[in-house]
């Protein structure tokens, strides 16, 4: 059985598992949803039901085609834009008009749309004298009208001489309906791979650089932050979609509050993170992390942001410098000459210290826990003078922030 290191490991697993979790919705929900939304939805059926008479169906068809045309609009950079509807005919207005049961009002609006539409058709046709597309049958169905419209547009594109009013309704343009791109993720994080798919084969471009030919898909590794426009081209049409590659940058600020106490925070105040000291989780979901670090050496402080989609772990290092020092000598010359008269260990910044000196037979001749005292060459500093020769000093000490050490040093006692 797999064990979790801590609750946060479990939570991450839970998050990953449940975020994309799916449970089939109960079958009866759709009917309630559809019933509640049908008043504003189902425009076409409502309209046709309302204007059942043959005389009105033409106008209804014209009006509906206007709406349907908006429905299939695809943003397309290279296709010159052709405005289908006056800007004022936005969706809200149409819906409002439709839900209004006053016939006169609807008729008025229809006139506007009809005018706008026929005017457009005329321009397109006058420009394209060779246009052999059949003139729309006024009673044709909505679908037919849409497709004939698309043909028209393509025609004028190929003709290349349309100077249509493209000033202020950029997204409303008509492209070929065949090509469409599905991106696996429209807002990927840096480093992720986005898969783009299309039902039709074509050549793929990312920011105008061709990456694949005659393919139905493209795998794109996000290596740079920002917007990437993907285009898919084939002989007849072109479509594009934009993906915004996101990244999250933050760094850790560290501050030594006082002796061996450190405080770390992320420079972005809205970010909270799980904090690790030397890869051990110390604190969860915090913006600031305060800790004691005493161990000499380099320590890693890692923040794993928990409330940022594109966040990667952020790491910083704190080095605790050696505060203690020790110098050990191996020769001393007792005597009153004022130099090297006692055997001493130079130590500073220590937690504890002890020294024991043994002669060659293993008999202790000196012991102390005070490094400043030193051995003067006499038995326990007060007895007989020890002979010249080799002695062994066992020195144990712990410098600040370091592990205990123990050393055996051979020292030579030399008297002149």
């Amino acid at each position, binding site marked *: *059985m797999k064990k979790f290191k801590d609750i946060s490991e479990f939570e991450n697993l*839970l998050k990953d598992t449940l975020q994309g*979790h*799916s449970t089939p919705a109960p079958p009866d929900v759709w009917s309630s949803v559809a019933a509640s*939304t049908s008043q504003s939805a189902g425009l076409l059926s409502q309209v046709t039901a309302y204007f059942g008479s043959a005389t009105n169906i033409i106008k209804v068809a014209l009006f509906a085609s206007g709406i349907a045309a908006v429905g299939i609009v695809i943003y397309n950079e290279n296709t010159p834009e052709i405005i289908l509807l006056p800007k004022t005919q936005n969706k809200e207005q149409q819906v409002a008009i439709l839900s209004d049961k006053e016939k006169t009002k609807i008729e008025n609006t229809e006139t506007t749309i009809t005018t706008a539409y026929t005017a457009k058709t005329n321009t397109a046709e006058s420009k394209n004298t060779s246009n052999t597309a059949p003139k729309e049958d006024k009673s044709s169905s909505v679908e037919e009208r849409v497709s004939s419209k698309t043909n028209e547009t393509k025609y004028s594109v190929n003709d290349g001489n349309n100077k249509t009013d493209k000033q202020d309704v950029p997204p409303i343009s008509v492209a070929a309906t065949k090509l469409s791109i599905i991106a696996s993720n*429209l*807002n990927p994080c840096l480093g992720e791979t986005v898969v783009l798919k299309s039902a039709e084969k074509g050549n793929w471009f990312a920011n105008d650089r061709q990456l694949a030919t005659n393919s139905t898909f493209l795998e794109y590794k996000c290596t740079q932050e920002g917007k990437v426009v993907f285009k898919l081209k084939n002989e007849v049409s072109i479509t594009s979609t934009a993906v915004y590659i996101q990244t999250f940058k933050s760094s850790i600020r560290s501050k030594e509050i006082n002796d061996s106490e450190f405080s770390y925070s992320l420079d972005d105040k809205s970010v909270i993170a799980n904090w690790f000291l030397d890869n051990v989780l110390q604190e969860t979901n915090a913006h600031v992390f305060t800790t004691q670090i005493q161990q000499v050496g380099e320590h890693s402080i890692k923040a794993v942001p928990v409330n940022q989609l594109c966040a990667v772990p952020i790491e910083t290092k704190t080095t605790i410098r050696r505060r203690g020092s020790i110098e050990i000598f191996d020769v001393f010359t007792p005597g009153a000459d004022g130099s090297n008269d006692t055997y001493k260990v130079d130590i500073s910044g220590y937690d504890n210290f002890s020294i024991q000196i043994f002669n060659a037979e293993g008999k202790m001749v000196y012991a102390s826990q005070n490094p400043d005292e030193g051995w003067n060459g006499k038995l326990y500093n007060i007895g007989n003078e020890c002979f010249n020769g080799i002695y062994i000093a066992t020195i144990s000490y712990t410098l600040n922030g370091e592990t205990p050490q123990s050393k055996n040093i051979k020292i030579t006692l030399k008297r002149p």
Partner: protein
Amino acid sequence: MSTSESHDEISLIKACSNGDNKAFRRIYEIHSGTMYSICLRYMNNEDEAKDALQEGFIKVFKNISKFKFTGSFEGWMKRIFVNSSIELIRKRKMHLDVSELNSNELPLTAKIETGSLDAEKMMTLVQQLPEGYRTVFNMFIVDGYSHKEISDYLEISESTSKTQLFKARKQLQEWLQDWF
């Protein structure tokens, strides 16, 4: 969940915001599973989750024309379903008051001792959390809201939010004691 490979999400959304019922049906088919899971995580039982799901989709339909294509559509929808779940909970008068949650009454059936921790077991674990803890836990851990956002949504203080999260964690840790 069945994802349509042949329909461009953007055109679906655009068609839907123009009142195309078929496009809306398609969106429902694609996303209802994920959204139902969200509702199940937040609500007390399947009936409530169904209500939240229904309310959520009505909101999606009414507001889809406001979707700006700046973020992921699924993310936008998820927020709507979290909101509609919270609204329903609030309608039933949410008891976030800590004192009302007696820890002795917590169900112990959720304890998972053996086997693997699959998605269904995780769902069960979350669902068994008492409502107050569960809401905060869901929002913070699974759906990525901050304590600040949670405090705004639930009209509780940030520290209450943190306390609730802490208790949820403690509870889960207890249930999963053999897993650590």
